[in-house]
């Protein structure tokens, strides 16, 4: 019996690697299991849907595009293995991944294997400061976002500011950057700066504490799950304060968790939502996604993964080549204002996305996300 199982496993593995050679393979590395599995699942849906659409239109250079997904488990060690696996599966480029530390553990592997990597959620600044030729990202960096957040806070005229993060690489980075900018601009006083423990349910302790220092605004740089609970519990405490979030709070689930009444008036900074883009690509894609999966994509990072897929396929189509050096050159120099799902995309020489990407959104009484002028 054991032998039979082993044999089956072996066959599965052989099958996994022995695909027909007349397809172009694009890797997707995402957190399919582990704490960020919801992000990974959506990344996979978006990229696969885009690949299907592309194949229906005849594929790339006369070949089918095939998406090879590997699970990074949201942890650097598993990610390093996933990267090695993708490197041996003959992919041209890899989309992903979500966490910055996770991406970092894989950068050298892809760099040495000459595989283009387009990260979708890794916003830590240093990732693109290493002079890596094949590294790109469709998400902007923490400093970009902090700039917009700090401006928005100043514009609201807030004098007493509370900043709350969750000690993740992303949230801490954004919180630190924003604090630095606000202090440099001498705009108001930072009356509270601390981290909550993510993935808990009860945040009344931290809310009670924040309430006692009487801020005008609370800037929470963590994720939507915690943000929803914060809004809901603040409402239950009868505490009326303006909340603002970073782009990780851009997810319709925040309204579901908090309830429409508690979510109303919540501001967040984010890349524009597909619905607010004038481009037909974005709206069409949104419709097909909704038709196929029943709801529009929740996470902005999934849309950014989709953009990663779209720019790399665009590069392959334009250069008529799968040579990584040519593709990287194209992305660095020739791709200008590509109509992505999240806005116009161009890359600078570091592989960072250029242009003002961030906007400020506000949740209205109906729980809709309204773009602020």
């Amino acid at each position: 019996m054991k032998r039979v199982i082993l044999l089956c496993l072996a066959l599965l593995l052989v099958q996994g690697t022995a695909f027909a050679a007349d397809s172009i393979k694009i890797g997707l590395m995402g957190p399919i299991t582990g704490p960020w599995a919801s992000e990974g699942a959506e990344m996979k849906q978006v990229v696969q849907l885009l690949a299907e659409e592309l194949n229906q239109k005849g594929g790339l250079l006369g070949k089918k595009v095939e998406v090879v997904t590997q699970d990074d488990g949201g942890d650097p060690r598993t990610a390093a293995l996933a990267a090695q696996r993708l490197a041996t599966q003959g992919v041209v480029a890899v989309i992903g991944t979500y966490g910055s530390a996770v991406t970092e553990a894989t950068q050298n592997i892809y760099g040495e294997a000459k595989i283009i990597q387009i990260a979708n959620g890794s916003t830590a600044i240093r990732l693109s400061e290493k002079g890596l030729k094949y590294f790109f990202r469709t998400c902007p960096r923490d400093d970009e976002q902090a700039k917009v957040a700090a401006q928005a806070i100043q514009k609201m005229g807030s004098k007493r500011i509370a900043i709350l993060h969750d000690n993740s690489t992303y949230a801490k980075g954004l919180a630190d950057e924003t604090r630095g900018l606000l202090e440099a601009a001498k705009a108001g006083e930072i009356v509270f700066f601390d981290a909550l423990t993510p993935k808990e349910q009860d945040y009344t302790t931290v809310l009670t504490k924040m309430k006692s220092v009487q801020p005008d605004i609370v800037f929470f740089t963590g994720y939507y799950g915690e943000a929803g609970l914060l809004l809901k519990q603040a409402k239950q405490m009868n505490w009326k304060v303006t909340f603002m979030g970073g782009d990780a709070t851009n997810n319709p689930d925040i309204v579901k968790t908090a309830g429409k009444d508690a979510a109303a008036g919540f501001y967040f900074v984010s890349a524009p939502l597909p619905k607010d883009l004038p481009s037909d690509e974005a709206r069409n894609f949104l419709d097909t996604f909704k038709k196929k999966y029943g709801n529009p994509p929740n996470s902005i990072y999934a849309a950014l993964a989709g953009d990663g897929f779209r720019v790399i396929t665009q590069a392959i189509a334009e250069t008529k080549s799968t040579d990584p050096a040519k593709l990287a050159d194209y992305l660095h120099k020739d791709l200008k204002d590509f109509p992505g799902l999240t806005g116009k995309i161009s890359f600078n020489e570091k592989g960072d996305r250029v242009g003002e990407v961030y906007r400020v959104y506000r949740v209205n009484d109906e729980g809709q996300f309204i773009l602020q002028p």
Partner: protein
Amino acid sequence: MNRRQLIPLAVAAPLAVLPLFLNAYWIDVLNSIGIYAMLGLSLNLIVGHAGLFNLGHAAFYAVGAYTAAIVNTTFGIPVLLLLPVCGLAAGLFALAVARPIIHLRGDYLCIVTIGVGEIVRIALVNNLFGITGGSNGIFGIARPSIFDLTLRTPLHFYYLIWIFVALTVFVFHLLEYSRFGRALNYLREDDVAAEGSGVNTAHYKLMAFVVGAGWAGMVGNIYAAKMTIISPESFTFWESVLMFAIVILGGSGSMPGVLLGAFLIVGLPELFREFANARMLVFGAAMIAMMVFRTQGLIPSRPRIYRIPAVEKGEGRA
């Protein structure tokens, strides 16, 4: 007896030539297995031999890895030269932590070690003393080199790691058959009797804990050297759980068992990659199944046989 001595050779020879037939991915899987095999062996001394319920081994692994990373990035000392320093740092940390708690009963010790593991992780995340880099971790650890060869590819690390595994097996084998090892087995079986026969149980338990932790610290150094970037996510409670499962699943107190355990616990999730998002489900089921069908572990440690020449055949065995 001769045949038993051949077994390590029979295992080592295929391992030495194996990477020639594998691609970089499978070599890297083997590297991961090697690292966990060493961690498992070091934990085996604590759990398998001394019988201390330790579910926080990742803490000592982390101390070693962070020592290597911090010293390397600030003073530029080559990583591999820091091996003894890392071992020492983790060992001293274990000594400080374990001294007041070593007398706790099994399950109380378990939660304390979990607690220590969590405290260490939270301290790393909170950028303790401003040197651990917070949740970003530490990056830019220089690649290690041996003479003129800079270790870069998975293949290089394969030989580094597995030579170190061989060394680990050798050292722990000597330890197992020393006075120290015998004392540990005695107090694991019956610490009251051991105490009564003049074995200083608290001292031996503490020593086992410190030696195991120190070795994990050295493995941390190798991990840091291999990854060139480390972050707190690599040292969670989950890592301690994996190490613990390797020891118990393989066969507590048995070195071949622990090695096999490392192959299964680290290797199976890789084999199950084809199951996509069900892979951890299958892995969990496999863990239960292996435990249920081999309750003593896959390769249980065998009771030692001491031949006493003066006793007639058939009399001395009860």
